[in-house]
């Protein structure tokens, strides 16, 4: 299939449901996967790798059972499968120190505070997925209608066959 995947890591089922549902708009083009803890997230990463679906965006809660989201992001940054993925912390609880850690060590791209609004979430997801596909994917046309179209088209200029 080779669909770019959005991975949501969130331990509370209700919050996870809400997050995944708010991402429905992207489901037409992207694969959306949810994981309930760090271990499960790593399993999803493996499954995606096996299906050759690259992970484009990771939305991660901070207070995960047994591990902090910031630490998980640091770990994922060091894996080749998830290194290029854009990383967003979705949390109500990460302190300044943890956030700085994630920014410095995990290339954290963004920080969404809970509770989020759908518009804000979509803006963030759209922006970072656009960044990701421009950097990592050759053919940008499938993403024009869902993501930032003008930016993708500008980037596509140099890539399409020259006719």
């Amino acid at each position, binding site marked *: 299939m080779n669909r770019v995947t959005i991975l949501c890591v969130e331990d509370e089922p209700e919050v996870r449901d809400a997050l995944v549902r708010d991402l429905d708009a992207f489901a037409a083009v992207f694969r*959306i996967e949810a994981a309930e803890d760090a271990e*499960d997230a790593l399993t999803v990463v493996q*499954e995606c790798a096996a299906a050759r679906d690259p992970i484009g965006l990771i939305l991660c809660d901070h207070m995960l*059972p*047994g591990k902090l989201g910031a630490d998980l992001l640091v770990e994922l940054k060091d894996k080749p499968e998830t290194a290029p993925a854009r990383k967003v912390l979705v949390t109500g609880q990460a302190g300044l120190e943890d956030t700085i850690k994630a920014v410095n060590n995990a290339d954290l791209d963004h920080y969404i505070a809970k509770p989020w609004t759908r518009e804000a979430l979509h803006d963030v997801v759209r922006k970072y997925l656009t960044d990701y596909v421009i950097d990592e994917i050759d053919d940008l046309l499938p993403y024009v209608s869902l993501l930032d179209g003008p930016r993708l088209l500008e980037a596509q200029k140099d890539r399409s066959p020259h006719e």
Partner: protein
Amino acid sequence: MSSDDNKATGYAIICVDAEPDALAALRHDVGEFCGPRMDVHACASAEQALALVEELATAGIRVALILTEQILPGISGVDLLLAFRERPETRATRKVLVSTGMDVLDLSRALNAGALHRTIGKPWTCEGLGDCARSLLTSFFVHHAPHECDRFKDLLDANQFPRAFATARHQQRAANLHIKTLTQSFLANMDMSDEEVENALGAGIDEALGEPPQQHHPAGSILLRQGEPADTIYVLVSGNVQLSRTAHGREVVLHEHAGGRIIGLLSLARRQRAFYTWRATTDITVLPLSLERLEAALQTNPVLSGYLVTSLIRTMAARSKRTAKLLVEVEDLNGKLRGERDQLANILQLLEDSQAQLVESQKMATLGQLSAGVAHELNNPTAAIQRAADFIREDLGTLLEELPDGDKLAAAMRSALTREPLSTAEQRKRRAALSRLVGDDALAQRLVKAGIQTPEEYRSSFGRSSGKKRDRLLDRLERYHQLGLSLRNISTCSKRVIAIVDSLRSYTRADETPVADVNLHEGLEGTLLMFSHATREVEFVKEYGDLPPIECHVGEINQVWTNIVSNALQAMHNKGILRIETDAPDADHVRVRIIDNGPGIPPEDLDRVFDLNFTTKQGHANFGLGMGLTICRQIVAHHGGTIEAASQPSRTCLTVVLPVRSQLGSNGG
């Protein structure tokens, strides 16, 4: 030790001091004076200096000047100068003692052996040091390397040249002649008192010069000012003179009465500017004496030289003594200051600690009030949310009966409401199975969203229908299942808000009166119930003994269990075995032990687990739980009980012992 290219100049200056700062300053100041014209070497010890001399000697470099501190590790400064004097290649080297702690014996030792040309006190002035160096270098070159005088003339005192050149030979002869008389008279003077020596000197001068005119100065007048060129000496006939010196913009009185009767001789002898300011403290009578006149007097009566030298040495000795005394006083004062500073620091630390404690306890009190208020305010909206979710559910059920395929839609909604939520891993597994069945991953994803999770459910929902018809039904099922899911999430979450509110209220119930006859097991069970949602993988082993009912604040004690269990579960990562044991060690006490098989607390941390802000949870701060074991200890102590922690890998035990009859009644709430 510098190893600059010495060949360039052929002459070197050596500075010796054990104190790195002083050495650096000395070297810097000397360097400032002579510039690149001469190599300045710095040595930290006499041994080093001697080794350096070897080295320089082989390189054909002469040491023109050495400045050394007296107090050195190993060989002392004076001994170093003596050693220099012994060596043929450094015999001519001009030798200076730069020192704070000089002692007459040492000084005379060096002086007598001809191994001391000057002394410089610490702190020195750049100017004074420069003058000294200039004058010594001049004499060095004039006497031992006259051919080089031209080359170094900007370092030398040209005024000294002609006379020095002219008189060098004559002086040598005269000196040889004098030395004999001088030594003799000096030795003869040893038994005389200071006064006798001074009187003899005064009388001798009077006699030699024929009653020279005396000067009278009122009290407060200044005879010599620090830094001014000294070309005259004064013999104090009557009255008192005070010696002071200005350093760091402050005038310090150094010698009162101790100045001796001959004023300015030292400066004059060294052809330096006045080191002290001489101020009359009473009306004085002095006998001014220019150098020429002094010289004339000495010529007339060579014995005078002996008196002069004796007087000089005694003056210096008196001053040295005074200096040493001052130094000891300064050291004493410093010690006192240090003590006071340490004391102040201790007091400051104490203040900071108690302030932190105060802030912490105020924070706790404010937190208590705040959370009680918040808890109360949250109750109403939460209750309304929970009821509204139930109402929507009932009404939807009724409405669905009227719709086509209503039973299927109702089932889809019900399944969302009742079904045990699956782990994300299980969800993916089921989706994969469905995907294999329908051959389309996107469709499988939609099926899962519609609550259809197994092939059987798929068949019962859609039978053999496919294509558009299936899609339309799937679309509706999806919506109703999601609706059910949202309703359930509203219910679950509002229940959690209520649980949080409850735990907040019990936490703030601190000021209620003690309740007698409390069964601790009830509180423990209630606490475990609160954690049941997060502890599916934890096995609880309860060994309850027979406990008498005890008198306590039930809310506070429950808070203790909550905190301990919460900590334990966190340490176990919500996985493993949690043991709860209760017994009554004696008739007046009950004991509760909560034991987890988590990784354990390192011994070095064990002492700190009851400290405020210590947590092994990496900043995890659940509201009401974050203060953790600190609160537990406060509560237990408040009840007159004890709490202890013991830990080894896979066994951490928190033991709480409570009295059956608490002392709460007596100390109030």
